[in-house]
């Protein structure tokens, strides 16, 4: 039996005090509830200083982790989104190859290939879940409004949370529709009639997709507005503001009824 406490561990009823408290604090993970209270043991060892030392170590560890976390997480999501795309593409190609192979010969190797391919596909689900978790953490407002998936996609196109937070809502509205936007712009420059896109990535959102065509532009504009605000809150403050998603919800109800 092993119990890991923040200041050391019990191995078969023998206690070993940790040399590096920060390390043991970060590793004090147990799969089941401890049968005793950590502080009872701790006070035997540290006496009245227990909480003072615990607090100091907790703050030091937290500072370090937060800093690391803030630097990395948006790049992590972006990289995951791209990985997801590439897996989807690759899986399709390999699928075709597998079908061809199967028609020719059903060898053991072909079976192995099939198994690996199934594994690769199930990895997609795992990556999607991870994207959702991280998005909730680094962009709670964005996730609340458009969902983690679309939020992650916006982030990927923008390049970083900082950039997304600095985009105007008009840009956010057409992220992912660059091709048709620039086509339209060049037509306008030549003095021809042009169709400017109403929505890019955010079209995927059910609130836009399910509206009749005429109203989609209105909804997309409104939503892009709120996304722009959400991205700014996420980047600068990081706290969830529930009123934003409620506004989007209300606007949708308004448009879908009228």
């Amino acid at each position, binding site marked *: 039996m092993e119990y890991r406490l*923040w200041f050391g561990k019990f191995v078969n009823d023998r206690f070993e005090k940790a040399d590096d408290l920060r390390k043991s604090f970060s590793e004090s993970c147990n799969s089941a509830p401890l049968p005793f209270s950590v502080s009872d043991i701790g006070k035997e060892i540290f006496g009245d200083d227990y909480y003072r030392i615990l607090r100091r170590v907790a703050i030091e560890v937290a500072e370090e982790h937060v800093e690391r976390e803030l630097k990395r997480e948006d790049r992590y999501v972006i990289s995951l989104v791209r990985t997801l795309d590439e897996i989807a593409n690759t899986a399709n190609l390999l699928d075709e190859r597998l079908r061809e192979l199967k028609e020719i010969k059903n060898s053991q190797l072909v079976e192995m290939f099939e198994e690996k391919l199934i594994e690769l596909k199930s990895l997609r689900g795992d990556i999607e879940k991870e994207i959702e978790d991280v998005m909730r953490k680094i962009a709670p407002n964005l996730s609340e409004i458009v969902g983690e998936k679309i939020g992650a996609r916006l982030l990927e196109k923008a390049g970083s949370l900082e950039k997304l937070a600095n985009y105007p809502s008009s840009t956010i509205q057409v992220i992912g529709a660059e091709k048709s936007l620039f086509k339209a712009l060049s037509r306008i420059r030549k003095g021809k009639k042009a169709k400017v896109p109403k929505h890019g990535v955010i079209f995927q959102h059910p609130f836009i997709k399910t509206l009749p065509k005429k109203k989609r532009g209105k909804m997309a504009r409104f939503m892009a507005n709120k996304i722009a605000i959400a991205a700014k809150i996420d980047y600068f403050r990081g706290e969830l503001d529930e009123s934003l998603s409620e506004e989007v919800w209300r606007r949708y109800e308004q448009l879908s009824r009228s």
Partner: protein
Amino acid sequence: MFKVEMEGKTRLFTRSAYPSHYGERKIGDYREWLPSRSKLASIILKGYVPGIKRDTRLLYLGAATGTTASHVSDIVDGGVIYAVEYSAKPFQKFLRLAMERKNIIPIFADAGNPERYSGIVEKVDFIYQDIAQRNQVGIFVRNFEFFGKSGAEGIICVKAKSIDSTADPDEIYRKVIESLESRFEIMEWNELEPYHRDHIFISVRWKG
């Protein structure tokens, strides 16, 4: 904590030797506790007094930037608050509070994984949870399994929209309370209107 009739309204204050944390007023030694910013404040203003005392050992799940936690820290000045939050940005602000207050132990972790901090948090008298997540009830129960003393009390704030954005809130509340009943004695519950829309709090006692 103190309720005062002021400016035609009932206002809530906690006695605090520390400065203002989130822009709230400070009058003398008292910090105003705003119900619009803190669900716990709105619970108290709605007339329910939770069993948090001077020497309570408390686990706080979802500390965010520490608005509510700062007042809880005022109340339990002889106790300890273990505060868990996993979002880096608000945690930064919360950390500043934790450095100032002697009774807050900040833990940067996901409340959904109590294993991760099982060797840090002691057995506690009270668990307060304010996290808007779909599986928040499961998370609440797991934390009681890990850290609740027998007979420990707790408050869970439930946001209907974050459990199911389409279903009827009353239906969601009924289901949540039903799912809590097997492990807890339900002591009180109420909506948080007019301070927070589509939210309820449930006050419970751990049966385990």
